[in-house]
């Protein structure tokens, strides 16, 4: 299976990528990162860009580092490279947990964090975790750099706040070294994509939940925070009873008519999964909180 013909350009710097995007703005142009969403779409004919600009090799966009209280993830960092970085597990436990659930080893070796978030597949594992982690998407375009809070980032299926002339350069995640996180998903038996995936990041003080962020993917046509669950958790303890109570409101504020409904799962089934996997994610978070508290 071949993709349709296209012109290929390799950008060696962010500036060059932005220039190439501007130069080819009249054509259907796609940025190529790890290619694990784009190339399958091109091979199956769902996407037929005229121009591909390969940004995967831009050195400045690779790597995981810590800047003060912020974990900085270069957009072209592969899933595997993030998982190899101890700082990612320490400062972004929910995000790292979700990254570990993406695809399989070979996919994680190629696919990138920035590529995933720019593509914004609602059934991917990262949107919920990015929301739970309060990430900031940093993008660069002809007018310079701008920061997009994750709560303003996801618009819909494959639609984000990014402008066509921009590329994601890094993802910044505020350190959650004092919190516990987890990700629980119901994968599609065939594709492994999330029918429902829940990421939770919970901070406790003396056994009381002081803050909670819970994000879901696979449910709506974009990642969404489960604010009713978050509110139910804060002020309580992360025990079995409060987890049950919080998960019970998982669908509150989510219009079932807007829920994804497809061959994999009806909207009604997704609503059931949403509660069940919220419970699983919170239970796993509580289990992860114990060893962190002992540190």
């Amino acid at each position, binding site marked *: *299976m*071949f993709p349709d013909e*296209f012109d*290929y350009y390799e950008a060696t710097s962010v500036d060059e990528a932005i220039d190439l995007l501007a130069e080819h703005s009249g054509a259907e142009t796609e940025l190529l990162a790890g290619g694990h969403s784009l190339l*399958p779409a091109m091979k199956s004919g769902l996407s037929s860009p005229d121009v591909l600009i390969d940004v995967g090799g831009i050195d400045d966009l690779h790597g995981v580092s810590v800047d003060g209280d912020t974990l900085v993830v270069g957009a072209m960092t592969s899933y595997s490279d993030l998982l190899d970085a101890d700082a990612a597990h320490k400062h972004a436990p929910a995000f790292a947990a979700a990254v570990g659930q993406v695809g*399989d*080893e*070979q*996919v994680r070796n190629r696919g990138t964090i920035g590529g995933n978030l720019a593509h914004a597949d609602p059934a991917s594992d990262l949107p919920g975790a990015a929301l739970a982690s309060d990430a900031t998407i940093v993008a660069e375009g002809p007018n310079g750099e701008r920061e997009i809070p994750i709560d303003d980032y996801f618009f819909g299926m494959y639609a984000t706040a990014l402008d066509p002339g921009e590329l994601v350069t890094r993802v910044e995640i505020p350190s959650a070294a004092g919190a516990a996180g987890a990700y629980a998903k119901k994968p599609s038996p065939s594709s*492994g994509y999330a029918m429902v995936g829940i990421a939770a990041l919970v901070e406790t003080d003396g056994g009381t939940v002081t803050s909670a962020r819970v994000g879901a993917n696979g449910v709506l046509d974009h990642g969404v925070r489960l604010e009713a669950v978050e509110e139910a958790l804060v002020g309580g303890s992360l025990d079995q009873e409060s987890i049950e109570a919080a998960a019970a409101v998982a669908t509150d504020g989510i219009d079932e008519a807007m829920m994804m409904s497809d061959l994999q799962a009806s909207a009604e089934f997704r609503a059931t999964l949403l509660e069940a996997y919220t419970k699983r994610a919170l239970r796993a978070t509580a289990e992860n909180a114990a060893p962190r508290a002992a540190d």
Partner: protein
Amino acid sequence: MTEHDITLTVNGTEHDLTVEARTLLAHALRDELGYTGTNIGCESSLCGACTVHLDGEAVKSCTALAVQADGAEIRTVEGLADGDELHAIQRAFQEEHGLQCGYCTPGMMMTSVELLKENPNPTREEIREGLEGNLCRCTGYQNIVNAVENAAESLRSGAVADGGTVADDPTADDPTTTDGGESK
């Protein structure tokens, strides 16, 4: 349509070739260079039959453009054996009946080699997780897991040729340590 001159070093042998931008790495290896041990299965990055090592990492070569691999070191299943001497993973698949039709086997072995490099003593569960991206429709996986366990044990005890994959060998990924490619 754009064409590109690229260089691929496959199993230690450097190849210069001209490819269309849309040429997939799997097709460049098979159709342009004759490394037909790399199979193409699902064409959608799910089955793993096309797995090769790209700069030391297992990747699905049906989901990478050949131009993206320009300048890279690639290892295919042909690069596992050292002359007539099978790699530990190949011997283990043979001994444990880790294959029936054999279509998935090159990819299974390439993924297994990376798995054992990162984790020389995996549990059965870790082997199953590590091979999540490789599908087999014959064996039911039991004998594949047995084969990877067998190879792990052989490699740890140093009882068999490592084919350049022992974890603590700094030259492990240096394709010049095998002659699988040169003999082509």
